[in-house]
């Protein structure tokens, strides 16, 4: 038998390192994965609101949902109230017909397009449809262009 380059001692040492590094490596990876939540108890991204007549003409702010329900004539739209810069709530200024964000001064026109300030993107319009129960259904996962609107008879 030829002389082995590694002794039994070397093998056991290697086994020991493999076991300990494997254990601690495994624990580390498991701990890191543990920190990423799998289920969130957060408000759903699609939900029902009230009936169209519950939202008067103009821009209506819904603080719980952080959206604006924009009701113009017989057209109804829903736009996000989360500034695309850092997440503050822009305020609708009726006289100037714009949304102004108090945090860093971003201004969005009545189409949701940014006209001033550091915000990188326009405020997204969300899809709003009418349910069979006559209530509005908003789906925040679906972003729609400004031309989209829900026709309502009020």
């Amino acid at each position, binding site marked *: 038998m030829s002389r082995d380059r590694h002794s039994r001692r070397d093998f056991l040492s290697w086994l020991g390192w493999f076991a300990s590094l494997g254990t601690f490596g495994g624990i580390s990876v498991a701990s890191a994965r543990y920190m990423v*939540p799998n289920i*969130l108890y*957060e408000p759903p991204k699609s939900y029902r609101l009230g009936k169209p007549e519950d939202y008067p003409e103009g821009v209506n702010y819904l603080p719980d949902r952080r959206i604006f329900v924009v009701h113009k004539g017989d057209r109804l739209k829903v736009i996000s109230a989360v500034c695309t810069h*850092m*997440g*503050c709530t822009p305020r609708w200024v009726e006289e100037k017909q714009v949304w102004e964000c108090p*945090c860093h001064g971003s201004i969005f026109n009545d189409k949701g397009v940014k006209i001033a300030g550091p915000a990188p993107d326009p405020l997204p319009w969300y899809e709003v449809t009418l349910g069979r129960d006559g209530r509005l259904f908003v789906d925040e996962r679906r972003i729609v262009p400004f031309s989209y609107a829900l026709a309502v008879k009020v």
Partner: protein
Amino acid sequence: MTQRIKEIVSQNRVWKSIFRHGFPVNARLRSEVITWNLFLHIHPVKVYKESLRFRKTLGLGLISFYLFVILTVTGILLMFYYVPYTERAYQDMKDLQYVVSFGMILRNMHRWAAHSMVAVVFLHMCRVFYTAAYKEPREFNWGVGVVLFICTLFLSLTGYLLPWDQLAYWAITIVTNLIGTFPLIGGKLKYIVLGGTVVGQNALIRFYVMHVLVLPLFAFILVFIHFWRIRKDGGLARPE
């Protein structure tokens, strides 16, 4: 008379078991008081006179440590009344201020010490820099100090959310949105920091655990190393 008292106090088994050395009546026994004590022996037996000059250091490192101690003690006391649950966190904070005995001063001390500590550790860092006390062999300790500074900032950030008021909520909304802009991993990082997509209960408990346990433990260990290093390097940096 005093001699008799000293004898009674120190010549018995209880004293000898705790202190092991005699009453400090000479230089050797005085140094033994320091060296035989776990907490006191962080100090050397002798110090260089120039290290004690106030104008040299303004005692900023000492003040930082003192503020850390104040924050720890007031923080632990605050923990007896504060629950990191979104439905009661703000009310608990208000209770601490207006209902709990001495709650107002404890909460205020904690908040003031927190803001002061950020300023003081920054000034301490400036002092170390401008007196060139980071030079060989103190480079590692400077590094430890920088990590401690970052630790202080994170402690400040995580603590800021806990009152769960408007200031807290929006500050953390903005900061986590900033984190979200980090290239490649930003979105995932924000998800892990918040424990979700919104600043809610998950975020509150994560920030709480970081603030009262993980970061203080980390800071404590680093402070220990930081002090240990100064002793090992022969005390505060002196001109050659």
